Every structure is written in structure tokens, then in C-alpha cells.
């Protein structure tokens, strides 16, 4: 029997499902960072707000990268529904700690897809995710560095203002 299905689609449907889940996760991250930018703007952390606007754009870029990969491989990318975005944070430290938690969750999710793709022998998906694996190392490292800077600076006195100014160092 001629393999019409394989000629039309280059990855496994299980990988496609997981990548659609990742699209949703990236969209959720983008919306979450936008909510953090809003919080920063409203609480006087204007440099941090710029940082989160940029992060929100980056996450959307990641989402589109996966979306386009699914198109290129003949899959069925799904436009994600994004709900349940938290807009409440107790402090700027809380904002960055939540960011790190988010990034760790994204990293775990990507690693899980890589493992599954490897198990399925889906080399295209596995190689496609190489870029994401390294990107996550960088993303986590950025937030960890900011949290280290916050710990060194402290939040007393002009500390908060200094923290906000220092965040500019992580915005290329």
C-alpha cells in the first residue's frame, strides 16, 4: 500500500500532540509575562516592565517557531486558548521567583517531548527541539542571575530602585 500518510506528514501524531501542548504553554508564558509587565508598570518598576514586555514577545516567538514547524511537517497546529493568567504578585521578588518557576516548568516540558520523540524514533522533532533545550538554559540562567542580584542588593531603602535599574543589564 502506497504510504500517502507518510508523504503528507513527517512526524508522529504523538509528537504533534505534545508540540501543540507546548504551543499552549508558550502562549501561556507570553500572557503571564505581559501580566507581570502590567504589575511592574503599576508598581513603578519601569525597567522590569520593559524586560517583561520583551520576554512576552520572545515567548510568542517560541510559540510561532513550533507552530511553523508543525505546518512544515504537515501537522495540525492548534491556536491555543489561554486562560487563568495571574495578575497578583506580592513583590518584585515574587515576580522574578514566579518567572523562574515558569521557566523551569517549560524546560521540563521540552525535555519530556525530546525524550518522547527519541522513544518514537522521531528524529525531526528531536533535532528541532535542540534549539529550545539550549534556549531554556539561557532563559533560566538569566532569571537566576537576576534573583542573585536581588539577593545581593537587598530590598531595603533604595534597594528596590537599584534592582529595577540593574535589570537593564539583562536586556540586550
Amino acid at each position, binding site marked *: 500500500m502506497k504510504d*500517502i*500518510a507518510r508523504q*503528507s506528514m513527517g512526524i508522529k501524531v*504523538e509528537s*504533534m*500532540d505534545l508540540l*501543540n501542548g507546548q504551543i499552549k504553554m508558550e502562549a501561556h508564558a507570553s500572557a503571564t509575562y505581559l501580566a507581570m509587565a502590567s504589575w511592574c508598570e503599576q508598581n513603578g518598576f519601569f525597567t522590569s516592565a520593559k524586560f517583561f514586555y520583551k520576554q512576552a514577545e520572545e515567548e510568542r516567538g517560541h510559540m510561532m517557531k513550533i507552530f511553523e514547524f508543525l505546518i512544515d511537517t504537515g501537522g*495540525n497546529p492548534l491556536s491555543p486558548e489561554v486562560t487563568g493568567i495571574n495578575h497578583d504578585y506580592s513583590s518584585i521578588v515574587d515576580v522574578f521567583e514566579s518567572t523562574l518557576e515558569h521557566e523551569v516548568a517549560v524546560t521540563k516540558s521540552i525535555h519530556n517531548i525530546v525524550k*518522547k520523540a527519541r522513544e518514537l524514533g522521531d528524529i525531526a522533532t528531536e533535532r528541532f527541539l535542540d534549539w529550545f533545550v539550549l534556549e531554556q538554559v539561557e532563559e533560566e540562567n538569566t532569571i537566576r542571575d537576576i534573583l542573585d542580584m536581588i539577593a545581593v542588593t537587598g530590598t531595603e531603602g533604595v534597594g528596590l530602585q537599584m534592582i529595577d535599574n540593574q535589570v537593564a543589564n539583562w536586556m540586550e
Partner: protein
Amino acid sequence: MNVVYQSTYYTLYQSVKERCFYVDFGQKMVRMSLCQLLSLRYKVLSISIEDHFDGDLNRHGFEVLMLCNKEHLFVLNTLEVLDLKQLVDHSFVALGLSEERETASI
């Protein structure tokens, strides 16, 4: 046309000549591209079968399924939904696009 998989109520065929698939729904035969078949898979696997056993969540035990850009409309009962889920699962395995056991969830 070759039979890819046959369940109790439905059959999936592959037409090499036309480079497409056909699903025999009993009342009618629906022509589908692989993209449309993927869309069918998504819609069918997204149906919560548990809701069929809860009178509040699905009072009548029916599902309305629209396929191929709203060209076809089907009203399916619980048994038909279960059978269609089985057809989708096994067909993608038979087509070589899925592993023997469905592990991913939508």
C-alpha cells in the same frame, strides 16, 4: 481503494489514485485529506466520553460533530463516539503515524 481500518460502525479507506482518504460513516462516505483526518482525530479525541455518563454534563448523550470545514454534520450517540475513537486510534497506527498505544493526550 484499500481498507486502512474497520471498526464496528465505520471504515477508513485510502485511495492511492486520488491521494486522499475516505471515511464510511454508514449514511455517507466522506472524502478527506490527511489534514482533515488530523482535524477529525483532534475533534474525536477531544470529546469527553465521561460526560456521557453524567446527566448534568451531557443530558442527552449525543455529540454533534462537524467535519471538513462544516461541510458535514453528524449526530453521534455514546456507542458511536466510542467506536469513532477506536477507529481514529487504530487508523493512525495502521497509517504508521502513531505508536501502537496512544500515550499522548490532547
